[in-house]
């Protein structure tokens, strides 16, 4: 009998099969992922987790006898009242006496549920999207350094001693200078000892002399010389900024309904996942505003009601304050997403535009404005809807070529397409045109 411990075997033996399965069911998994993403909170939106697939696409068919029709018999345990010749009402499912014979393999046509890892989830979720190319802008001017191995040096700290290299050098030097090996010396000594008492004095004297010479030589030529010693060398490279901050700005005045907030939240979730994918460290700042703005936590941001007028520039001022205080544009990639129903106090529009173009946009990588509308906004034919104050204001800014985009969203099913539109990978021609 042998006992073998297989627990140490490399895991992930089934990875190849799993990938094949994922590829096979890709379109279905993608759909399931997009559906499940809507119902998550911002921070755990990219946790991976369970998705449910309809069984159809990955069904493995076989010739099976059908569960209904024909003559069939059942053998059941646990008889209590029946005697031969009794008739029994057919159970409503028509599956026969037991109701469980219909599905021989036990799984029938149930939906197929399985767990995706975080990476698989996000990969599918953000397929074909990319950040605007601006992200690289801040790579150079930073003073964070990271060390990479870069060959060997003759000086360094003992902790970095390159043992293999040192011994290799020592070995080649010893060979080159013909330092006697310990075995040779031992062999000589043995031979002299063997000659002890023998007549051959001349031979013995020659050997003694030889031995003395070798011993001297091995004393003069050291085993390891300072010349041999090498150290691992490290080179410093500037570390690219791998952190981002995401500003969520939202109008919470009375005109924003729950539905609108829900739309905004979904958009923020998407943006958060997306940034998380590109940056190791993503921080989120929530700023809500009415006629005054404040920085709040996520829960308050989405849930606590507030009343007041609408002055957008207050939020921008608050954002500017936070940036100055904590997120220097030199070290942080700054993204902002603003959601609003488009209302603004008329007198504030110029101030808003000025703040954005002069102060915020130069600091930001990307600024997205999302105008949320009511789900069921129908206008009588012939009625042309006037663009909102903010929309008009921002249009002029975008026309001047700022890193900014805006979209209108009315229904939650539009959120994901809009998001994709904003971040879709530019094809070659488009990229060249910009």
């Amino acid at each position, binding site marked *: 009998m042998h006992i073998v411990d297989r627990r140490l075997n490399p895991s992930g033996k089934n990875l*190849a099969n799993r990938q094949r399965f994922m590829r096979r069911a890709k379109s279905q998994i993608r759909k399931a992922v997009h559906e499940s993403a809507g119902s998550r909170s911002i921070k755990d939106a990219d946790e991976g987790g*369970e998705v449910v697939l309809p069984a159809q696409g990955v069904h493995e068919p076989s*010739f099976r006898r*059908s569960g209904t029709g024909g003559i069939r018999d059942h*053998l059941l345990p646990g008889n209590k009242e029946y*005697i031969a010749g009794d008739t029994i009402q057919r159970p409503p499912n028509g599956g026969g006496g037991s109701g469980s014979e219909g599905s021989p393999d036990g799984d029938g046509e149930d939906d197929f549920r399985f*767990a995706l890892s975080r990476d698989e989830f996000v990969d599918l979720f953000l397929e074909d999207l990319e950040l605007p190319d601006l992200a690289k802008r801040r790579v150079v001017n930073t003073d964070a350094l990271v060390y990479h191995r870069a060959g060997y040096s003759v000086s360094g700290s003992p902790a970095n001693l390159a043992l293999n290299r040192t011994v290799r050098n020592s070995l080649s030097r010893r060979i080159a200078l013909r330092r006697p090996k310990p075995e040779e010396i031992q062999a000589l000594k043995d031979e002299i000892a063997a000659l002890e008492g023998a007549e051959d004095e001349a031979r013995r004297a020659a050997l003694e002399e030889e031995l003395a010479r070798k011993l001297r030589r091995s004393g003069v030529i050291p085993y390891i010389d300072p010349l041999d010693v090498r150290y691992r060398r490290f080179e410093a490279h500037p570390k690219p900024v791998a952190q981002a901050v995401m500003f969520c700005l939202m109008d919470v005045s009375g005109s924003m309904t729950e539905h609108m907030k829900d739309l905004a939240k979904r958009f923020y979730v998407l943006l958060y996942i997306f940034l998380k994918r590109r940056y190791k460290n993503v921080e989120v700042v929530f700023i809500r505003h009415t006629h005054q703005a404040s920085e709040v936590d996520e829960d308050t941001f989405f849930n606590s009601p507030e009343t007041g007028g609408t002055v957008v520039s207050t939020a921008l001022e608050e954002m500017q304050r936070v940036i100055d205080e904590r997120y220097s544009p030199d070290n942080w990639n700054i993204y902002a997403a603003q959601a609003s129903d488009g209302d603004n106090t008329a007198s504030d529009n110029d101030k808003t535009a000025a703040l954005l173009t002069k102060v915020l946009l130069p600091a930001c990588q990307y600024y997205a404005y999302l105008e949320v509308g009511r789900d069921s906004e129908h206008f009588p034919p012939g009625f042309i809807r006037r663009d909102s104050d903010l929309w008009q204001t921002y249009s002029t800014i975008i026309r001047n070529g700022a890193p900014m985009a805006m979209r209108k969203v009315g229904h939650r099913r539009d959120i994901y397409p809009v998001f994709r539109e904003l971040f879709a990978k530019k094809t070659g021609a488009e990229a060249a045109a910009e």
Partner: protein
Amino acid sequence: MSSTLIRAERPLFEGADWEFGTIQRCYDAIEKVALNEMGLDVYTNQIEVIGTEQMLDAYSSIGMPLFYKHWSFGKHFSRNEAMYRAGMQGLAYEIVINSNPCISYIMEENTAMMQTLVMAHAAFGHNHFFKNNYLFQQWTDANGILDYLEFAKDYIMSCEERYGEAQVERLLDAAHALMSHAVHKYPRKRAADLRSEEKRERERREHDEKVFNDLWRTVPGKENTRHDPTAAEQRKALLELPQENILYFMEKTAPRLAPWQREVLRIVRIIAQYFYPQSQTKVMNEGCATYSHYTIMNRLHEKGLLTDGAMVEFLSSHTNVVFQPEFDDRRYSGINPYALGFAMMQDIERICTLPTAEDKQWFPHIAGCNDHMNVLRDVWANYRDESFILQYLSPKLVRHFGLFHVMDDASEPNLRVEAIHDERGYRKIKQALAKHYDVSWTSADIQVVDVNLAGDRRLILHHRALNRVLLEEKDARMVLQHLADLWGYDVLMKEVDPGTEAVLKEHAASPRPGIVQIEPT
């Protein structure tokens, strides 16, 4: 026996923890009981300790330690993993492979008692059954299976490299769909030797390469003018029709498959054949293993090698395994093979040692013979589920389970109780239950009956609809589509009533391009 019993100084283990020394100690103690007292005959054992993920792995590749790659295994893995993570499904304590040496996987999470139990169950119970049962001896080659799987894995991988993953996947999809009808149910002239399979395939390829001469292609053939009136019979004889092993027929006869495709079909077919005995001996196999572990654990306890605490833990898990819910119970999902198998083995022991008058009348050849191990070993060697139940299901067990037989005729408004556990019913119930374990009764009887070689090459299959139970239509269409893809021409399946030969239903499929080149019609 207990009078001569020398109680052990100390038990094999105390508490739940174990280490490799414990396992070795337990194994030795079990071996002593199994070989000396029960007279079991086993392959050399190899016990492998594995973790959760590896157990899930083994699940998805039908328990085999190495297997070729296919998306369906990933699917099963993902589903089992999700169910396990959600706590909806526990994992098996062990998996045992019919190979020589016999490999048993045991889970690292098991307690020391559980490791003892699974070794008694798998490494001795199942192992003895694999080595001695005639079906396994006839159909499987325990020495060669691991080598063959290795060959299969490498061969399919090399096909993927040469012809592309998509090609191989399409082919395997089709082959898997037909896997349930890819076994020879009766022994053919020569038993398959798995080890030589691999050699033969290599030699065949070498030979083909050696004798290849492009000139043969240019030699004008003889004009074939002879037209035999009995061409239909000749053709059928030549193609070995009717043929119920559909995959075998495809491998040998499908006109447009490439040689490597035939080899892949062959691999799937041989693996299906390897598992064929297991599906016919579920009750006996589990019965044998459960009876063995029950006997061994009790003996260990008698000898003082198991603490009372471990024994209680064992009994609790044993009774869970052999629990049979009644038909109106929410937990009922068919007859539990562990329960039925264990009950029947214990019943045979009872008949041998303490027979009643009824037993003497029903089983005169074994009642009171007092050598139950001999009888059991003979049973384990020479029966399969169907014949075993037909022979050994005693009236006492029919009463014990309260078995009753219900007839369900779709043309009648009500179900009818045919037989219950009474004097008139024993035999009927025995026969009906045995039929449930007869593969020729449970799996659909589908045969390739004819092919029009001269004309449109349409393949014709018959499903002989036993008791007028038709095939699951959606599935049948999908499988038929796969079959057409392999065949390369149209396929027609008729479902016929075996009594009247009336055609109940017809399905047809035309090939899609993908596996073989399709000629434009």
